[in-house]
């Protein structure tokens, strides 16, 4: 998972043709539809790569 649009695992199904209502929230706070520490870590890795400081994220 390099970008938020990439799927964290097979449970994520969001694409432009098969959209998920929670997609935007899921990018930062996800995964919303299932529990998985590794899926959560994948999102955090994307954030950590570019976050300038601790206050960077706005939910």
């Amino acid at each position, binding site marked *: 998972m390099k970008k938020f649009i990439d799927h964290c695992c097979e449970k994520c199904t969001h694409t432009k043709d098969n959209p998920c209502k929670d997609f935007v929230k899921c990018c930062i706070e996800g995964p919303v539809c299932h529990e998985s520490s590794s899926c959560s870590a994948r999102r955090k890795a994307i954030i950590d790569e570019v976050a*300038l400081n601790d206050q960077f994220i706005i*939910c």
Partner: protein
Amino acid sequence: MYEKHLMICGATGCLSSGSNLVEEALVEELEKHGIRDKYRLVMGGCPGFCEVGPIIVVYPDEVFYCRLKPKDMAELVEKHLLEGEIVERLLYKGPDVVVPARFYDTIPFYAKHKFNVLRTSGIIDPESIDEYIMRGGYRAFTRALSMEPLAICEEVKEAGLRGRGGAGFSTGLKWEFTNKAPGPKKYVVCNADEGDPGAFMDRSILEGDPHAILEGMLICGRAIGADEGYIYCRAEYPLAISRLKIAIRQAEEYGLLGKNILGYDFNFKMNIKEGAGAFVCGEETALLGSIEGKRGMPRPRPPFPAQSGLFGKPTTINNVETFANVPLIVKEGGVLEFAAIGTEGSKGTKVFALAGKVRNTGLCEVPMGITIREIIYDVGGGIKRGKEFKAVQAGGPSGGCIPAEQIDLPIDYDSLNKAGAIMGSGGLVVMDEGTCMVDLARYFLSFTQKESCGKCTPCREGTKRMLEILDRISEGAGVPEDLDTLDSLAASIKDSSLCGLGQTCPNPVLSTIRYFREEYEEHITDKFCRAGICKELFTYRIDQEKCTGCTACARVCPVDAIKGEKKEPHEIEQDLCTRCGSCVEKCRQDCILVVPQGREADVSN
């Protein structure tokens, strides 16, 4: 994980002062030390302080380096990145700070800023949708998708957002009109045809945070029931257009543009239309005509675009800054947050392009209601070279001139209107005692006269006649009746022109007559220009007692009008002198005098 992030200003202002060369030198230095992979370099949006560009901000240390040159990069890499020591000589220095200032909170230019619209500019990579989402992006749009369209209009009305492009009409009300207009096809149009001389607010927003505009337009689309949008952006903004195209492509990839967005019954297609740069195309009906492929000319209103706009369909047009404010309002709790800033009648912040005779030029975003004094002295750092503040032109060529006596006037829609100016898109040109107000009025009127599309007679012919009179006055051939004639022509043009360009173009003339009538009278009666600007009304003379014969003036004179031997006083041949002023700029002894034609007394420079 990167050790540090280096945000380089990649906006047009800093690019023109060489930020791309600074970036190349930085990359070279990092590679030389074999540490390129440890640091993230981003050509980001504009941090606003254009006067001191090129700028790099190093995070997480939050160190603001300015006035950078490629040769500074070796020291920055070795000292700051490798040794962890701040390079003090590259920090901001100036008469307004005691010690070199390290970051935003210690640089006086930023002390009065309130970053709303420019919230992410310079902080994120403008070409990354992920970073926009990390900063809360597209949350407001997601919320809007679950709301009733009229409820969105209501929130925007309740927040008190007024259009940032000119007249300051209620944005929520405008949306409601389009929502209630009948018909299945409606459009959202973003006016990015920023045309005022010296204004670059919208360009900076587009370059620094393009997704904010897309999100604002999507929310508007949801509110009015539109499924298509156009961004009308002048072709002179290639970086803004390039970043918009990237942003649109990303939003489509993420399913934030297209069909059944995020699973809701909402479709939206975004288009970009490049304009050819005509000033009149900033007028909404001319802009619509241009998108339709017609000549960019205004058409009579009513019907207003909300009833019959693009291709005859109900259309909402807002400018860039207006759309950039929308996500802040429609997000959870945004209405109260937004309305808490500003004045009773003018909520939120305003981005200004501060230009002219102030020390600190650049972009500033300040709360509505801030005074002119605060902008000029606190943000702008005061007038250059310790001269006296004379006036400020607010609102570009359609705006008016506010004199020094009104320096404590709050900047909001109503106060500016009462003073004879307008908010306009946010251009602020500051003038000092060396500005001739007749010449200023002539400059702005010549701009609007050239940009008049010619469709309606009052604007086409009236501006020409007014300009002829101003030319005559500045050449010393004015007659006392000219002021009444200007007043009367201005009133006719304002009353009978077809569009906003004509209706507002006499403002610079009217406001300068209103506040600086004695300067017009001096030009007419005494043939005297106190600022020494109107070339027919003065000559230059070299003070023979002060001149040291350094030859600096003679070397810079483009027509060789200055004669004299080295170390001997020089003289100006009046027949050759074009009064370009180059010698005055160059003389270090202040010995070039301005000699008015119509009065006996000399006025030194």
